[in-house]
């Protein structure tokens, strides 16, 4: 590669950006921004980028992403190729890229992926600092997933948080005597019992499913104050809080529709759309599908969302599926990679992407609270705050391959499923989970 001098590369980069009108251009009108100097990322001569990210959630997810990428190429002359990978499969590709030191320059992967490969990826502290200052700061969850645990060093740029709110049929909840699902767990259980008695059972995934299954388990545990490891990473699952959560899940399970033990990620979508269940937790996808099909528009009109019950003050028993972008050290064009991520996060690009995706990837930067996205349909407002969650996979411990392995082996969801279905007593289920977690954390 021909190397240019620092002065020349700055000139090329700045020239390209100013030619495209990207410097000094006001951000999207609705998004409040601070006047923060651009980070210095002089583009390397002949730079090209290869990006992989999870496959689209809805068509605009891909089309707007590609449009924004084309804008970047026009502005900078840096060709960028984006490949879309299956959600469950992206981790294998990240592992290959990290271990072989070749492949994509940027991966927009999942929440804790950057933490597993922190020695293989570029430091993003400067870029994250710029974005945070310009756009009103980062939300709590991006702060957790973006920075190295216990430090101020940024490993990645969180790009969006797919929240898992409570999805429910308002009319059926009203018929059961509640204005909306209560936050108190005992009252919530009462509501579920009444819905079940009225032949409108509820349903949460208890099968080995990456998103919904793990989400069910962590909700129940965190709502009761339980956690899998303590701050130091010592296994702490076998606690009275866990046993209380498991006893509660056994009661709640009695109000479920049959079959939830084998439910995977799409199962609750299907059951809710078919009006087989009255309540579940999910991303905005259920509502999106209902709303866009005239045959199910009536169900969409009767559907509401809210935070999952069991919140204590502003602490919610939820995590969010965070899209977390990292750039590998093996890239020949680190500045171009950082500049691409900055460009994609700027309001001119980010806000249309956020809005057209109906807020599925809720913003990580707080200024986007003001986005038109959240004014178009008040029903999706609970998804706006996905980035305000403070819980994460492997809570309360540091990020580690062990935390990822525990999630991948469905330790928590299998514990909840065995206690809920009566296959084990809550005490035995907690003990078994403790044994499995101890093995996983010891190996790591």
């Amino acid at each position, binding site marked *: 590669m021909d190397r240019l001098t620092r002065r020349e590369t700055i000139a090329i980069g700045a020239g390209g950006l100013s030619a495209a009108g990207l410097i000094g251009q006001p951000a999207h009108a609705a998004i409040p921004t601070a006047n923060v100097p651009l980070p210095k990322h002089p583009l390397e001569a002949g730079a090209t980028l290869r990006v992989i990210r999870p496959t*689209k959630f809805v068509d605009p997810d891909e089309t707007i992403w590609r449009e924004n990428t084309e804008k970047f190429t026009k502005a900078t002359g840096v060709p960028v190729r984006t490949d879309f*990978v299956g959600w469950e*499969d992206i981790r*294998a590709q990240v592992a290959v890229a990290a271990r072989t030191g070749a492949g994509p320059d940027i991966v927009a992967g999942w929440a804790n992926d950057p933490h597993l490969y922190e020695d293989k990826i570029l430091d993003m502290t400067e870029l994250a600092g710029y974005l945070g200052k310009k756009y009103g700061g980062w939300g709590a969850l991006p702060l957790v997933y973006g920075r190295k645990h216990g430090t101020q060093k940024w490993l990645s740029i969180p790009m969006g948080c797919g929240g898992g709110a409570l999805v429910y049929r308002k009319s059926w909840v009203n018929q059961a005597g509640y204005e909306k699902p209560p936050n108190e767990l005992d009252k919530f259980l009462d509501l579920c019992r009444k819905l079940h008695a009225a032949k409108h059972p509820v349903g949460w995934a208890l099968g080995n499913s990456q998103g919904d299954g793990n989400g069910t388990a962590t909700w129940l545990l965190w709502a009761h104050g339980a956690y899998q490891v303590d701050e130091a990473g010592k296994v702490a699952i076998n606690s009275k809080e866990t046993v209380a959560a498991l006893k509660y899940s056994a009661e709640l399970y009695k109000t479920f529709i049959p079959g939830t033990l084998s439910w995977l990620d799409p199962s609750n979508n299907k059951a809710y759309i*078919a009006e087989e269940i009255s309540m579940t937790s999910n991303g905005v996808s259920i509502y999106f599908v209902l709303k866009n099909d005239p045959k199910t528009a009536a169900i969409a009109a009767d559907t509401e969302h809210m935070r999952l019950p069991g919140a204590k003050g502003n602490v919610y028993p939820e995590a969010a599926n965070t899209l977390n972008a990292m750039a590998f050290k093996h890239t020949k064009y680190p500045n171009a990679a950082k500049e691409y991520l900055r460009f994609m996060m700027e309001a001119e690009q980010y806000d249309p992407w956020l809005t057209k995706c109906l807020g599925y990837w809720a913003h990580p930067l707080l200024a986007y609270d003001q986005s038109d996205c959240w004014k178009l349909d008040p029903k999706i407002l609970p998804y706006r705050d996905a980035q305000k969650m403070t819980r994460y996979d492997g809570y309360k411990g540091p990020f580690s391959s062990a935390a990822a392995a525990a999630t991948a082996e469905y330790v928590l969801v299998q514990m909840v499923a065995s206690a809920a279905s009566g296959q084990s007593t809550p005490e035995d289920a907690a003990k078994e989970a403790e044994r499995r977690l101890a093995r996983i954390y010891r190996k790591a």
Partner: protein
Amino acid sequence: MNKTADDAPVTEAEGPQLLSWDSLPRRIVTVYVPLVCFLIILLFPFYWMGVTTFKPNSELLNYKDNNPFWITNPTLANINKLLFETDYPRWLVTTMGVAIGSTILSLVSSVLAAYAIQRLRFRGSDYVGLAIYAAYLVPPSILFIPLAQVVFQFGLFDTPFALILTYPTFLVPFCTWLLIGYFKSIPYELEECALIDGASRLQILRRITLPLAVPGLISAGIFAFTLSWNEFIYALAFISSTENKTVPVAILTELVQGDIYHWGSLMAGALLGSLPVAIFYMFFVEYYVSSLTGAVKE
């Protein structure tokens, strides 16, 4: 070969006849009912794929008002989406190319390896055979990262050659193991006769052994083709461009969007994707069966 009494054709008058202890009810219970159960179990997945392919979403999601086993309002929308809104035809061609390439490569290697182990009888040949089979037991999930480094070093990443050259890592052991067993069933005397007549080892392989081993080769070929066609983990790890993907990986990438599964198009993709393998089996089923029952009757 001389025909024996066993090979004589059965005339119409001779049978098949029911024996004294045999009866129609007994046959129904012992033959036809198990046969029907077997057929239902084997064919139901194809039926389900077919039915789902032509179902509109409203019927697919609502079993209360619709019969899950039948279609009220069939639609071609799922096939249309698969064929014209995705790169499915290209994925199919890529998968076919990869499967054929890796099968040919594996068969050639396996024939040579199996013949050497079975017939040349060099010192330690038994252990080599055992080691080759043991290699088959190493799961691809362990091998894909080291193999990825090799693929990158050769500059093959994201090309079909990455798959054509890595699939033999599990195909060669399997085919070799299968062919060793097959070559064992070919009488050694035939080769000895050829040796006496002055044939070289390669001539024996080409003119004597391989023609007799055609059913075994076809059987190994079918297995290799099917394993290549369905392979997932290497195709996922070594190919990142959408257009270069193989069918099993690509339909998941394109038709599973988060927790939204486009079941109709997924099933259409699975159905169309399984047809080449089914056709392949259909044409060669006789060779396949004969390979399992031995090569040449002594």
